[in-house]
């Protein structure tokens, strides 16, 4: 396993603030550093600002009328805030967006090929095979329009598409969402494999803390726009708070979802 403290920092986010629509302050000073060749997890509840952080890094905020008002984002020692997303992809940073965002009218295969848009080498076909190897289901549906594929299939397309760009760093937003458990495991195995074999760096935002912390090397926990905790994944997994609130473990192992209501119910249903 990689030791985060010893490797170079590839991506550094310094104390950024993000505002949407000129009025809604979402990130209130977030700092992260992503080591080269590592898998870094960004955890946190709904609306904590994970997606926003990733979009700030990949410069996709503009199109949502958001902007980084403070702080800096540095990739390989270079300030990348003012770069266009396309240039950033050329630099090797690609984002898999939350909510899939496939090109609905394009076929599955064309979707994957758009991932290779910035590439000029001739090995695209090989990588296409690699993606089909990882996701055989996509091979079956290669000629279908992506808009008509199932939720999970679209998620595969989105991840496959990112892999097609042969990135150096992938920003993965909720890769497990909507995937069958087996596939979640598979995807993280793929992440791990790609990370180890090809040395791709990952920054992933995940709700599924359990899996995320099993595969990540280092984790940050975000709450309402601030980093509230960070540390090596191993330590986080052992942290009692994390255990209780993010992993759903009590002292007696996993608790049943059916039991939660007896002690957590705050209000009665008034009919």
């Amino acid at each position, binding site marked *: 396993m990689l030791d985060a403290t010893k490797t170079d920092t590839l991506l550094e986010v310094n104390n950024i603030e993000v505002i949407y629509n000129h009025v809604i302050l979402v990130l209130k000073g977030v700092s992260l550093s992503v080591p080269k060749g590592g898998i870094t997890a960004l955890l946190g509840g709904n609306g904590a600002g994970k997606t926003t952080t990733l979009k700030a890094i990949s410069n996709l905020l503009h199109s949502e009328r958001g902007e980084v008002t403070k702080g800096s984002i540095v990739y390989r020692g270079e300030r990348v805030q003012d770069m266009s997303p396309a240039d950033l992809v050329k630099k090797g940073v690609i984002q898999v967006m939350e909510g899939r965002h496939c*090109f609905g009218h394009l076929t599955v295969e064309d979707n994957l090929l758009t991932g290779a848009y910035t590439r000029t080498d001739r090995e695209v076909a090989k990588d296409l095979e690699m993606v089909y190897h990882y996701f055989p289901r996509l091979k079956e549906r290669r000629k279908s329009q992506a808009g008509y594929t199932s939720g999970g299939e679209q998620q595969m397309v989105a991840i496959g598409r990112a892999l097609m760009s042969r990135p150096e760093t992938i920003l993965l937003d909720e890769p497990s969402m909507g995937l069958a458990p087996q596939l979640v495991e598979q995807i993280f195995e793929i992440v791990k494999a790609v990370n180890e074999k090809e040395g791709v760096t990952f920054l992933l935002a995940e709700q599924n803390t359990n899996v995320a912390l099993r595969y990540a090397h280092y984790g940050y926990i975000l709450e309402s726009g601030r980093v509230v905790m960070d540390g090596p994944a191993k330590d986080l997994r052992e942290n009692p708070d994390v255990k209780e609130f993010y992993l759903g473990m009590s002292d007696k192992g996993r608790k049943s979802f059916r039991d939660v209501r007896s002690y957590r119910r705050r209000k009665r249903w008034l009919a």
Partner: protein
Amino acid sequence: MPDQLLYAIEAGLNGLMAGVLYALVALGFVLIFKASGIFNYAQGVLALFAALTLVGFQNGQIPFAHLINAIFGTDLHTFGWQLPAIVAIVLAAGVMVILSIIIERYVLKHLVNQAPIILFMATIGLAYFLEGLGDIMWGADIKKLDVGLPQGINETIDTVTYNAFGYGFFIDNLDIVASVVAALLVISLTIFSQYSKQGRALRAVADDHQAALSVGISLRFIWVLVWSIAGFVALVAGIMWGSKSGVQFSLSLIALKALPVLMLGGFTSIPGAIVGGLIIGMGEKLFEFFVGPMIGGATENWFAYVLALLFLVFRPQGLFGEKIIERV
């Protein structure tokens, strides 16, 4: 009556030719729609602007002469030289590229990821702007456009058909040229958008701006590219229409003739533009020719739309348009 049949064939053929001219305008719409999901209302004005620029270059007009004269009290009009048509066309095409760069830089770039209707409105704003700009640059008077295209009845067809049927068909030479040019454009653009990497990128951008950005497609490049092509198509349309009726404001209204073509062929299909054009052109000419006199004439404006509308009721995405994805 065999005579009626011959008339019908003649009207139909002329309709097909007119349809090709509509298709030339529609093609510009399709390109931009395909590449960005933008319904570019300014396409008609773009054609006008292109034609004005072409004539301006040909006649060595000084751009903004009127404005300059008004401000500085000078009396400038022309440089006093005439350019050969081909040089002027190349220069005008160059201006269209510059224009696309400007449009991308100052308009489109800021409207990434907005609702289609907002983009549509922005293009109407653009249309106003270009209309004013064209007038200020080159003046609002009517201009004759002549790049040496043949015009008038095609004698060969006339004689051949006269010998064959005892009635010579009227086909305009200009229309024949337009058809050839349109066919070439359609074929090359279809190849470009179906089989090239950029073509795929265009379609991706139309589907989802943000996702396209996220995979590293440079919207800027794509947009400048298609707007330039659309500008070139507009120039071609402007030349064809301008040769017929002179270059002046009304040229921009040909956009309205292209819309039903677009509907019928499908907003996203390049071959659709041509097929739609042919159907609309022939349909409206035959209708005006036979039914028009019975109901008072001047039916062409609405007939094309009603035809397209009826058609859409059965096929909401047009003939070759991409199906609207309906899923939850």
